C-alpha cells in the first residue's frame, strides 16, 4: 500500500507540473517568450529590441492586461546569436516555461533552425522582429511563423538597384555565412546583374574571425568599384570595414541592414562619410513611429538609430492581439486568431491603444494595427508587407534619407 501512496503522490505532483505548464490551471500571468540575443554578433541590436518588447508589455499591462485582467509576462532567453544556443533556448521556453507564443530570434541563421525544430513541431506561434532571409518565406512552418520585418527578397532588389544607380559597374559582395547572408547575397546578385552590372566576387565569411584580410584580398582581386557588405556589426562587419580601408582594398561601400549602426563609423568617420546602406523600414502611414519614439524616450532615453526595436514592439503587440482574440493561450488558436483579427480594412488601433483593441475584439471586430514600424500587414505565409529605407553615414551618425516602397 505504501508504495502505491508514494506513486500516487508523485503522479499528482507530475500532473500539477504538466497541467500548470499547459496553462490549464489558473494562471495570473500569460507567459510569452522572447529569444533575443543579449550577447554575440547581434548583441548591439538585441538589448534595444528587448526594450521594445518590454515597452509593449508595459502598455498592455497598464491598460488592463489580457484575457480578463491577466498580466502579460515576457520571459527572455539569450540566443547568443548562435543557432545551437538559440535552439536550446527556444526549447527551454517551450518545454520548461511552457510558452505558446514567442518573439524572436533576431538573426535568420538562428530563426530557421528554431522554426524547423522547435516552434513548428510544437505548434508554438513565433514572430521574429528581424529575420529577413527569403528562406523563411517557404520554410515548412504550418503557419506558425510570422515576421514583422520584410523579407530580404525586397532588400536585395533595392540594394542591387541602389548600387547600380550609384554608378558602380562592378561590385564585390562579402556576406556572413548563414541564411541571412546567403539569402541577401543571392537576391543582390540577381538584381545587380539583371541591371547589367558585374559581380566580380561573392565571398562568404565566417563570423568572429580576427582577420578578414585574406577574404578582402580575394574580393578586391578583380578591382571592383565597390564592396557590398552583408554583415552584422560586432561579429565581423566593423572589422571588415576597417581592414578594407586600412589595407587599401576598398574605398567605396554599400551596406545592408545588419550594419545600420553608428558604431561602424566610430573613429573612421572621415572614411565613411556619405556612404549609403539599405534596411527594412516602416511602411508609411499611421502615427506609430512618432508615438513609439516618444514612448521609448520616456522610458529608456533617446531611441537609438537601430532597426528592429519598433518591429520587436509590434511582434509582442500582435501576439497579445492573437491571444486576446483566441481567448486562450494555445498555439494553434493564437495562430488562427492573428490571421483573423488583423485586417487592413478593420478599425485602426494605435500602439498606445491596447484598451481600444480589447474592446474591438470583444465586439468581434477586426483591427488594422498601425504599429510602431508602420501598419502591420501579413501575407498568407506570414511575411510582412514592408518598405526598404536608404540610410547614409553623415558626420558619424546614421541618417535615413529615402524610402522605397514595394
Amino acid at each position: 500500500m505504501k508504495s502505491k501512496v508514494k506513486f500516487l503522490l508523485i503522479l499528482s505532483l507530475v500532473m500539477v507540473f504538466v497541467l500548470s505548464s499547459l496553462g490549464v490551471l489558473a494562471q495570473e500571468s500569460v507567459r510569452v517568450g522572447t529569444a533575443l540575443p543579449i550577447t554575440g554578433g547581434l548583441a548591439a541590436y538585441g538589448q534595444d529590441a528587448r526594450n521594445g518588447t518590454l515597452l509593449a508589455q508595459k502598455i498592455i499591462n497598464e491598460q488592463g492586461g489580457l484575457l480578463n485582467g491577466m498580466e502579460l509576462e515576457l520571459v527572455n532567453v539569450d540566443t547568443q546569436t548562435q543557432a545551437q544556443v538559440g535552439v536550446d533556448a527556444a526549447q527551454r521556453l517551450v518545454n520548461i516555461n511552457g510558452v505558446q507564443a514567442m518573439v524572436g530570434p533576431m538573426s535568420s541563421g538562428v530563426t530557421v533552425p528554431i522554426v524547423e525544430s522547435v516552434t513548428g513541431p510544437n505548434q508554438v506561434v513565433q514572430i521574429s522582429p528581424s529575420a529577413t532571409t527569403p528562406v523563411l518565406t517557404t520554410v515548412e512552418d504550418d503557419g506558425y511563423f510570422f515576421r514583422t520585418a520584410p523579407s530580404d527578397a525586397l532588400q536585395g532588389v533595392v540594394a542591387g538597384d541602389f548600387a547600380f544607380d550609384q554608378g558602380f559597374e562592378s561590385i564585390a559582395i562579402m556576406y556572413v555565412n548563414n541564411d541571412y547572408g546567403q539569402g541577401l547575397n543571392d537576391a543582390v546578385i540577381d538584381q545587380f546583374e539583371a541591371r547589367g552590372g558585374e559581380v566580380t566576387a561573392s565571398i562568404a565569411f565566417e563570423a568572429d574571425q580576427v582577420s578578414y584580410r585574406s577574404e578582402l584580398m580575394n574580393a578586391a582581386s578583380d578591382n571592383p568599384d565597390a564592396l557590398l557588405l552583408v554583415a552584422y556589426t560586432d561579429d565581423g562587419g566593423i572589422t571588415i570595414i576597417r581592414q578594407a580601408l586600412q589595407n587599401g582594398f576598398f574605398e567605396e561601400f554599400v551596406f545592408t541592414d545588419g550594419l545600420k549602426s553608428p558604431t561602424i563609423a566610430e573613429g573612421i568617420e572621415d572614411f565613411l562619410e556619405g556612404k549609403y546602406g539599405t534596411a527594412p523600414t516602416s511602411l508609411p502611414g499611421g502615427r506609430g513611429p512618432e508615438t513609439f519614439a516618444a514612448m521609448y524616450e520616456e522610458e529608456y532615453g533617446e531611441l537609438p538609430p537601430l532597426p528592429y526595436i519598433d518591429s520587436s514592439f509590434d511582434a509582442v503587440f500582435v501576439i497579445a492581439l492573437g491571444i486576446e482574440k483566441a481567448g486562450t493561450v494555445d498555439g494553434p488558436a493564437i495562430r488562427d486568431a492573428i490571421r483573423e483579427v488583423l485586417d487592413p480594412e478593420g478599425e485602426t488601433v494605435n500602439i498606445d491603444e491596447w484598451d481600444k483593441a480589447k474592446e474591438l475584439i470583444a465586439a468581434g471586430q477586426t483591427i488594422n494595427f498601425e504599429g510602431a514600424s508602420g501598419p502591420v500587414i501579413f501575407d498568407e505565409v506570414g511575411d510582412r508587407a514592408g518598405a526598404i529605407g536608404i540610410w547614409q553615414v553623415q558626420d558619424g551618425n546614421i541618417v535615413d534619407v529615402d524610402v522605397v516602397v514595394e
Partner: protein
Amino acid sequence: MVLQLLLNGLIYGSIIALGGIGLTLIYGILNFGHFAHGDLMTLGAYLAYLFTVQLALPLPFSFVIAGLLTAATANLLDKILYKKLEGRDSVTIMISAVGAALIIRNLILMSWGPQLKFLERGIEMPLVFFDGLLRITRTQIMILILSVIFVTAVHLFLSKTKLGKAMRAMSDNTALAKITGINTERVIFWTWFMSGILTSSAGIFLAMDTHLIPEMGWNLLLPMFAAVILGGIGNPYGAIVGGLAIGISQEISTMFIAASYKPAVAFAIMILMLLVKPSGLMGKKV
C-alpha cells in the same frame, strides 16, 4: 599576394605561438589542458584597454601592468582552483578550467559589454612596398619585433637559467624532476606567471592588430591547442613552430579554398598530425 598572405600568417602565427608556449608548458608540467588560457588572453587585452583607453595611460605601461595582472590572475586560479584538485582525474581539472574560462569571460562581458572595442579609435594607414604587393602597418611591424624579442627571451630563460631548466625538466618528466630535488612549487608558480605574461601579450597584440571582443581568446583557444599538438605537447619550441605553421597555413590556404573554411585548416592539420605522428613535430613520445 603570397608575400602578403605570408606576412598576415606570420603575425597571426606569432600571436598563437605566444599563447601556445604557456599552454604547452602547463600541459607538460601540470598534465592538463588549460581551457581557460584563451580567456586569460582576453583578460590581458581588456586590461590593456582599461589602462590605455579608459584611463588614458601610455601603452607600454599598460602593456606591462596588464601582463602582471594577468599573471597574478593565472596564479590565483592555480591557488584557488587547480591546486585544490591536484591528484584528481585530469578530466575533472580540465572541466573546472572550462568553468574558470566561462567565469572570466562573463566577468569581462559584465564589465565591458559585448560591443567591439578598439585600442586605437582611428585606423592606421599601412606602409606600401613593391607597388602595393605588400602592405604592413607600423603596429604590425612592432608586433613582429616584440614577438621575436619575447620568443628569444623565453629561449634564453629556458636554456640558460636554472629555473628555466627546471621547468623543462619538469615538463619532460615530472616524477623524475621531483626526485632530483627540484622545488616543484616554485617551478609551478613561475610557469603560471610566465604563461600569464605571454598570453596577455598575445591578447594585446591581437587587440592592437584587430579588435577586442569578449570571445577573442576563446576563439583562439582551438588554434592554440592545434599548435601545441602540432609541435608536441610539453615542448615550448614546438609550440612556437606549431603556432607559426598554423598561422601561415591558415592564411595561405585562402589561395586554394574558400576563406570561410580557414578555421578548419588548423583542425585538418591537427588531425593529420595526430594520425601520422601523434607525438608532434618535436615531441618524443605520447
